[in-house]
């Protein structure tokens, strides 16, 4: 590639990156600005940074012209972590053996069942929310962590099932046969051979499920009260009667996005590998 081609390519990439990352960058800036700075016209890249937004979030007290407000942001952050992690763990415990069964054992209606499970991701959550909230009330599951984790399986389980199944299908069955003929039971073969070899896929599926669970808004909004709500819902609190606290929203967004962004950056290699490996056939 000639120098000109390289230069043009670099400029184009920079423009595209700018286009996609600009909102995130701007929000990052906003989180260090006071409300006055944010609303100033014309907007300026230069300002005196302040940590007051973060302080407000962490201490849980928002001091504004209209008085002091209690913000439960840290609690929301904790809820997000708890719900996402627990949901993914449950989904893995249920989903990985199920994925193995779908991959290895051909049983009647197998494909139909698998597709039905996948279809849960197609349906918009609003479709099931109303009946679900009624059932939850009857079962006493409203506003419980258990209830939410259970509902989150609708998000996490299909994902884990389909990605991990692809990984198991890519494993040559001969490797498992070899281990069994060598004298090991079916269970040992599953735990010592199948799971380790599908490791990248399981990790990728788990990460993806975590990110999707973390981003979920509607289930917690309807099925839980303020004390159990994750950051997605908690951000609404910044729309107050006395005005929208853009600074705190920006800081909240930064803190909300940070964990999943860090995870994704750390594991992006596995994510791409996990999602594309099903397509390759050796």
């Amino acid at each position: 590639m000639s120098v000109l081609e390289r230069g043009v390519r670099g400029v184009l990439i920079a423009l595209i990156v700018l286009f996609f990352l600009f909102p995130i960058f701007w929000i990052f800036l906003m989180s260090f600005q006071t409300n006055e700075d944010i609303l100033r016209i014309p907007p300026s890249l230069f300002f005196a940074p302040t940590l007051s937004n973060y302080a407000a979030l962490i201490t849980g007290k928002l001091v504004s012209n209209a008085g002091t407000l209690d913000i439960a942001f840290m609690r929301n952050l904790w809820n997000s972590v708890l719900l996402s992690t627990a949901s993914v763990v449950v989904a893995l415990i249920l989903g990985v053996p199920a994925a193995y069964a779908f991959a290895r054992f051909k049983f009647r209606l197998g494909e139909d069942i698998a597709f039905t499970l996948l279809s849960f991701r197609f349906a918009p959550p609003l479709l099931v929310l109303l009946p679900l909230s009624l059932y939850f009330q009857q079962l006493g599951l409203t506003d419980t962590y258990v209830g939410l984790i259970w509902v989150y399986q609708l998000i996490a389980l299909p994902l884990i099932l389909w990605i991990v199944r692809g990984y198991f299908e890519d494993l040559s069955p001969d490797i498992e046969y070899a281990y069994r003929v060598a004298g090991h039971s079916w269970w040992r073969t599953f735990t010592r051979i199948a799971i380790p070899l599908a490791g990248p896929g399981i990790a990728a599926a788990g990460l993806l499920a975590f990110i999707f669970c973390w981003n979920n808004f509607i289930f917690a909004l309807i099925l839980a009260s303020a004390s159990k709500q994750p950051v997605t819902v908690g951000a609404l609190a910044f729309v107050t009667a006395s005005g929208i606290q853009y600074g705190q929203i920006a800081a909240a967004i930064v803190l909300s996005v940070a964990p999943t962004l860090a995870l994704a950056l750390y594991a992006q290699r596995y994510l791409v590998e996990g999602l594309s490996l099903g397509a390759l056939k050796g």
Partner: protein
Amino acid sequence: MAIEIRSVSKEFKSGKVLERISLSAEDGEIVAIFGPSGSGKTVLLRLVAGVEQPDEGRILLGGRDVTDQAPEARGVGMAFQNFALFPHMSAFDNVASALTAHKVPRDIIRAKVEKIAALLKIEHVLGHAPRELSNGQKQRTALARALVAEPKILLLDDPLRNVDAKLRYEMRLELPSLLKASGSTVLYVTQDYKEAMALGDRIAVLSDRDFAQIARPAEIYQRPATINVASLFGDPTINLMPVEPLSSSIGPKITIGGTALSLPSSYGRMAGKPCVLGLRAENIIVEDTASPESVPVEVVAVTPLNERTLLLLHTNDGREILASEAGTNEAPRRHGAAFARFDPETVLLFDPASGRRIVPQAA
């Protein structure tokens, strides 16, 4: 009886692969299971290993019916065509896996693994992961894994297939003594007839869902049961020609290339019946001069093959025949007119309808 396969059938969605097939192997015997690709040889091996279940029939190992037993309980050693090594374990652990299932003490495992590795010349790569090994080393590791627990029954699924030609030849020379020394009863699957002849005490030829013939290698080569078996053994493939013997005062005669040729009188009863004549390339002698009962031919192509020379011959009645001679003499003068003859005793006759060989009858 070390291995007994009794009337076993297996069907897949794509069709029936094995139909009421039976085979038995004595202690310490090496039985080569030979057949073209897709004939069900691998399926048969898997049935014996327990990795697949037969639709009907029984499998007995050492006299015990194991048809319903899981593979880990059968105590067989198996080597797969594509090696099937565990990618996340070292070569050492791969081999040791055949021993770790039975709570063998670590130092004994180490001793056994190192012993078999030395025998197969892979002791220096035991610490490596499978992806760091060459194909030949992978194959030997897979073999080591099958052998290390000194199983009574050894199942080898075309272990030399994915290995380059030179190594395959070397292993073909070393394997027989290795297998005999192990004392195991061996079922060896292969698509290469030379491998089958080199390794097998007996060869079971699998085609069309059943065994066409089970016999010693020499018997299969010299007295094949069917046209199919005859054409699967021998390089180049046996010449097959439709003929119709006629009786004459001196015995049955056939006509090739306008020349009347005698057949042994033990085929006398085939006079007037259409047959297929089988003649192996190495039994045809090509000369420059005519002799009684030699067929005029044209030598159309001369090509060397495995320390022999192949001559492609055309007869004047449109037949194409391959002859092979010992040695490698391809002087250009060989092209052109020549004469071909053969010893009638080397001829094979088959019934065209059933494909079965016609057995010569003493007069």
